[in-house]
């Protein structure tokens, strides 16, 4: 008998907030005051951040020296692939007008170099770069093997097109005395790249580790001879190499080259810029918390803030103008 009353209501749905779709809810109301104050606050915030960003970007000192034209002769020389190991130097004198404080970074900057081409970014072998299997060149097409079938190390299009200009900064006390500015080749890569992603094959001797492989076709010297000064900076864990292997997002990009102190510079030996119709520069720059010298973000914030304020005022005007009409509607 007892089942009957329960049975009678057996199909009564649960009266829970969820099932009855009556969860307590916050209604997003685009009411005048809400929207106006929201816009206003956004405007204030954006303007504030924008100004801060602009100020901080302004504090950055940056010098860019475009050496494309000046070193055009070297480029011409290099256009003929036969001359790739011939030395060619050119020097550009420049003047740093103000003191650059803090860490100064030297970048090279390429214009119109497409490091983000689909085929290009595919053409690398991570397992080779990790040093586990030097001869694993499977994904490196078309730069997998030399003509005689020896696997290339490091293989692939990215490695092959490495930026191999040597940039030397020297401080000209006078016309004759050149003080070479000490450059730090280390610390320019991501730590994880240097110590996790890029490893040399384990062997006593680097050259023996790379035995059975050959250098990429465009390279003047094999990978284990990249840095003559610091033997620990050779092979796959060469900082310049690692930096190059991190492909840039846009065709115009700069990459960290050296960390250094105040100075002048010398430039020598460049890849032929004309071959990629691009330009090359050296950039000397300091850094702040907000990154480089780009004013864009700060400006964007400022502009957004300003636009938001404008919108606020226009809305307020509309709102005030139509106050009466609104009243009518809400009474409806």
């Amino acid at each position, binding site marked *: *008998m007892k089942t*009957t009353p329960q049975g*009678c*209501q057996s*199909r*009564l749905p649960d*009266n829970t907030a969820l*099932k*009855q*779709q009556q*969860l307590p809810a*916050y*209604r*997003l109301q*685009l*009411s*005048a005051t809400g929207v106006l104050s929201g*816009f206003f606050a956004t405007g204030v915030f954006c303007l504030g*951040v924008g100004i801060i*960003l602009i100020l901080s970007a302004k504090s950055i000192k940056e010098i860019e020296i475009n050496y494309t034209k000046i070193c055009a002769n070297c480029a011409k020389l290099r256009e003929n692939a036969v001359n790739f190991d011939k030395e060619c130097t050119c020097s550009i004198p420049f003047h740093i007008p103000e003191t650059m404080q803090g860490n100064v970074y030297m970048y090279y*900057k390429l214009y119109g170099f*497409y*490091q*983000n*081409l*689909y085929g290009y*970014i595919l053409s690398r072998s*991570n397992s080779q*770069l*990790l040093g586990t299997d030097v001869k694993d060149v499977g994904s490196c097409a*078309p730069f*997998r093997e030399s003509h005689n079938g020896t696997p290339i190390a490091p293989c692939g*299009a990215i490695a092959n*097109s490495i930026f191999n200009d040597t940039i030397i900064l020297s401080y000209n006390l006078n016309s004759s005395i050149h003080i070479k500015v000490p450059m730090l080749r280390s610390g320019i890569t*991501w730590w994880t790249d240097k110590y*996790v*992603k890029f490893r040399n094959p384990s062997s006593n001797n680097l050259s023996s580790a790379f035995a059975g492989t050959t250098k990429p076709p*465009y390279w003047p010297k094999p990978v284990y001879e990249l840095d003559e000064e610091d033997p620990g900076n050779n092979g796959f864990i060469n900082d310049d190499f690692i930096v190059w292997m*991190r*492909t*840039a*997002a*846009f065709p*115009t*990009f*700069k990459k*960290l080259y050296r960390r250094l102190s105040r100075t002048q510079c010398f430039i020598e030996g460049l*890849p032929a810029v004309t*071959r*990629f*119709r691009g330009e090359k520069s050296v950039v000397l720059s300091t850094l702040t918390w*907000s990154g480089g010298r*780009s004013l864009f973000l700060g400006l*964007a*914030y400022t502009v*957004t803030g300003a*636009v*938001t304020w404008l919108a606020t005022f226009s809305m307020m005007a509309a*709102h005030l103008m139509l106050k009466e009409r609104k009243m009518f*509607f809400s009474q409806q």
Partner: protein
Amino acid sequence: MEREPATAEEPAPPGRRWRRRRRREGRKRTVRSNLMPPPGAEDPAAGALRRQCGGAQHLADNQLKTTKYTLLSFLPKNLFEQFHRVANVYFVFIAMLNFVPAVNAFQPGLTLAPVLFILAVTAFKDLWEDYSRHRSDHEINHLGCLVFSREEKQYVNRFWKEIRVGDFVRLRCNEIIPADILLLSSSDPDGLCHIETANLDGETNLKRRQVVRGFSDLVSEFNPLTFTSVIECEKPNNDLTRFRGCIVHDNGKKAGLYKENLLLRGCTIRNTEAVVGIVIYAGHETKALLNNSGPRYKRSQLERQMNCDVLWCVLLLVCMSLFSAVGHGLWVRRYEEKKSLFDVPESDGSSLSPVTAAVYSFLTMIIVLQVLIPISLYVSIEIVKVCQVYFINQDIELYDEETDSQLQCRALNITEDLGQIQYIFSDKTGTLTENKMVFRRCTVSGMEYAHDANARRLAKYQEADSEDEEAVPRGGSLPQRGSIGSHQSIRIMHRSQSTKSHRRTGSRAEAKRASMLSKHTAFSSPMEKDIAPDPKLFEKVSECDRCLAVARHQEHPLAHLSPELSDVFDFFIALTICNTVVVTSPDQPRQKVRGRCELKSPVKTIEDFLRRFTPSRLTSGCSSTGSLATKSTHKSGSSFLSTLSNNSTLLKLEERLGQPAPAITSNGYSSGADGWAPERATREQGQELEQVQEQELRYEAESPDEAALVYAARAYNCALADRLHDQVSVELPHLGRLTFELLHTLGFDSIRKRMSVVIRHPLTDEINVYTKGADSVIMDLLLPCSSDDARGRHQKKIRSTTQNYLNLYAVEGLRTLCIAKRVLSKEEYACWLQSHLEAESSLENREELLFQSAVRLETNLHLLGATGIEDRLQDGVPETITKLRQAGLQIWVLTGDKQETAINIAYACKLLDHDEEVITLNAESQEACAALLDQCLHYVQSTRPRSTPEKTAGNMSVGFSPLCSASASTTSDPSPSLVIDGRSLAYALEKNLEDKFLFLAKQCRSVLCCRSTPLQKSMVVKLVRSKLKAMTLAIGDGANDVSMIQVADVGVGISGQEGMQAVMASDFAVPRFRYLQRLLLVHGHWCYSRLANMVLYFFYKNTMFVGLLFWFQFYCGFSASTMIDQWYLILFNLLFSSLPQLVTGVLDKDVPAYVLLTEPQLYKSGQHMEEYRPRTFWLNMADAAFQSLVCFFVPYLAYYDSDTDMFTWGTLITAIALFTFLLHLGIETKTWTWLNWIACGLSILLFFTVALIYNASCATCYPPSNPYWTMQTLMGDPMFYLTCLLTSVTALLPRLFFKALQGSLFPTQLQLGRQLAKKSPKKLSAPFAQGPLPGETRTEPSEQRSVSTSGSLSRDCTLQVSWHAQQPACSPEARGEPSMVDVSMPLREDPLLEGLSSQALGCSSQEEAILEGCPGDSKVKPTNTSRTALLSSIFNLPTFSSLNWISSLSLVSRLGSVLQFSRGSLQMDKQDGEFLPSPPQPDQDLKRADHGLLLGASSRDCS
């Protein structure tokens, strides 16, 4: 027929068991006993073995297999099915494209992942469904039942699946029937068996099944071994209502088999101890399973629109890819001459030509940008819809306490269509009304009995009801609950079984509901049961009773009564017995009060004893001694008798006919009973207990009308006490129990529109035919009476007054039935019986023959009286209709009822308004219909521009504009309503007229189609759907609405009193009409708005995301490179951004429910597709493009001159996109619940967690991005956060700005609704939680209505009087709806017409006095608009034709444009001396047609 030979095509092994064979013609199946030894001698053991091996292979066994797949076939079959979806094929194509080396954009395996995921999810879902099907199949297959085993010579327990065709099955009470079984034996002495078909059609009343003729009278218990006959029957079909066949006995004799002999699988045996039958159809060939079709698949309008937009997206995709390809070609050419350092040549050192590169790029781009076609869209939509359905099901406000049912969504994928409905097509009976028939008043032999007390009682119920609703849940079963008792436990146990087993025949829910319902007797609410008798009539009935009690033993007892009293007596006898009501007692539900099986139980009380052994079973005569017959004597007695009357009914009949009338056994009162009955009667009167017992008899009727009549008769102490298949007992206070021998029951059908019983009257021993049916039919079948003699004149008068009252009832909205009687002489009966039996036993066109036979019987009837049954409006129907109309829905009512009743109900439920015009379209021919349509159109067009009528004095056209609209509120729509009858509808639906009809109907506020057939209903729906391109909803409760429900875009079934056919066919099933309001206005709106917004959001999301990739192509030489990691690209849609939009899609409420209910016009936004239309789609896409521009270029410029690498920047972009999506969703989400917060939080959390884990997982994996430690580095950079913030804000500012501006400058209705919700938080929600407001819960059918109209009354009358000064009869009582006023009265210049018009007014009032005061009462009364043609055909009076057209003219003349013509034509006709009018329009062709032309602005002119 012939025995099964070893035919060539199926080599029969020796010892093959008997089996059915499909004959070459394929028309019939032959079934023989499985027990019969086949011609070749057979080893029983071998037989058993073979049985296990499966027996005859082509024979459907009883094993149920509804699974689609087997282990082996699952994968191929499921994949095959899944690839029927174009989307799946597309995605697989893309994935396959990626395997082509030249064009691959991603790691080949990776693109396959989402497709495989989707396929796998679907496959898993299918597998699970299939598995649960398998499980339930298994369960059902392993139910046990008793099957006769040849080896053991007894019934043994076997599983259902082992049953074969030809097996003998023994079923006990409350068992479920395992297959379609031919009933061969029943424990019931009369060979009856009751089944409950709730699982099949939801009907809870018991159906009677009968043992095959010839087997019912077997001497001893049925022995299957002796069964040698061959059964020949139809091939398996799905017609539940038909079974034909015959059984051929060994001696070559044939006996017909009918559906009454067949026990259908899925039904439950009730009231019968045990039955035995032979299996005819098993397993999938049973009717129940053949009837079971799978769920319906409908595509919603939104989805269609969406698919169209998906095509746009495909186009966009192709364009983007093409652009990219061209770009890439140009780029390659630019660098062609000089090989650049970054150039990646082919393996052989050569480089691709620009054109080849472009082609490859194109294909790669298609892969890269495939996200534009959202793979997850379809899955998400399915999920959202399932959740929406779940929430609709769960809505507590759609739960009906009375029936313990809530709304069921049977179609899962058209929820959003509910928000876009434009036309509602509704049935009337059971849909708008309760289908609870309550006896209201009756007319017996020309005297009206108003039953005022009854009316008062009903009014009380209404009040009580409405109070109840407010109070505690009322449990409709309260009166009966106490009596369920011990039987309950059995039933409950059994019920669980039955629900399990009938998932096939209907959804589980339905089975449960049905079993729920079956606890209570249908149609027996107190309101229907307790009828307050009219004192006058009660007195008359008592008088009859007394007189007859005294005169019973005389020669002609009835002769002592005056004709009127005799009619009264017959009337009540007819009410009581002319039906198929089964009597049960509440003590033992579903047990017959006196069945023989009951005798086996010990006598419990003295009352029980008395009741049980009251001499009543007179046919068999066994209990005539009235003594305590023991079981054994009883049995032998009965069997003895049954042997006597073995086999041929004809024989029995002849026997009986030959007997002298009052002599023995077979008629009403046996001598032995004489002493008993009076004694018993007196004792009974003294014994209250017995009285109570009698009171509690329950009547199980097939239709509510029958129940109402039986309950009504009981109120007059003329109680139906018992019904067996061959006798009916009626209990009267003085006469005691009268037992009528029931010779035949000619069931009700919709063609004849009547039913009859043939009985032998116990008092007179005459054979009487009692017929009950629609008045239109019965009136035609009456004995023509000559006007010569007094009696004939009297009869005629009775008829005419009865007809008058019938009209009056119809006006009141009552359902009318006529009761008639015919006395047959024995010769006539014998003659008829002969032909009837022939008809019954014929195999070919039996229906036809039976119909003719019935027609032969039901003629020359003597009219007894008429009843008026009220079918009350359901709760809240007027309110619902008002709201729905405010919501911009056009409501059409399509009903089979007659015009007057329909119109009245329409007024009651506010479908028609008293201050609006009603155009009535009744045409007799195609041409007339065309002409009428033209006129109506002309009229409608001419009046439509005028918002208020011009009341210029002297201008006759004044009358044609709505009288009250001037005084009515200015908001009222001047558009008229259209009433059309079935015949005109048929003409109007013809090809050449349908456009006009539709055009007219479109102008009308509401349309009422009366007397329409189911087919017409569906045709109307189809027409509106196809021609007007409108969204249609059909709602109905009965089988006659099924076709309409199926045709409509959305079919809604009401799980009402008439079974479940409508529900089975519907997409949604609601318990009551009023729930439609909430279903459409709230859930429909929500579903539509949610889904529309979600689809838009999906398009936005994908376009925006693809935009990011596309813009990047400008910076990577269009090389199809992606800065976003492939994994992010693939998982983004599936994982990171899917949850919040799902939550919003499921839970968002743009406007709260109470506002939607109070402001129904908000629904219009869905009708006009405001939320999702091409314009919004493209705006949305434009916004997506803008946002993607912002989201790309802000980070691009921010990182322009930096040393960032590609994938770090890509990760930043992904994060930005995610934030932007979520913020965008935040703006679009109207209600933020904790679920939304969680979903958004989870989304972000998931992205960062996955990214961090992914970026830390492998140093060398995932080329080309190789994203080791990218995210970690990125998150240490303040630039990342600054950029994210700025970009998201900038991207969404314009949207927010425009939304805000638009919201304050040009707010849409919905936004206003939202503001309203904010202003009055929750204030209104309380009353709406309870449905309609208590104050206005119901419209009182008559009282309140008349009160409500009284306001407009005086106005009408003054107007009327001012025009028709010769009409002083305009009493205040005349229910003066403006539409009712007959404006054409001034036209009636001759006296006849004069009288007519006064009559027209008079009979439109409710007051009897006026009616009687009308001159020329009897002559002119048939001026009823719809009845005219009919009556004129009956009486063949020339005047009637004229009256006919005059009344039509009076109707026509409401049309201003028509008036002048009509007037002229009238004069012309008078000169001609003919009543043939010229056509109202100068169209000469229509002259002939006009004879039957009926057109009116109101059909209520005189009804």
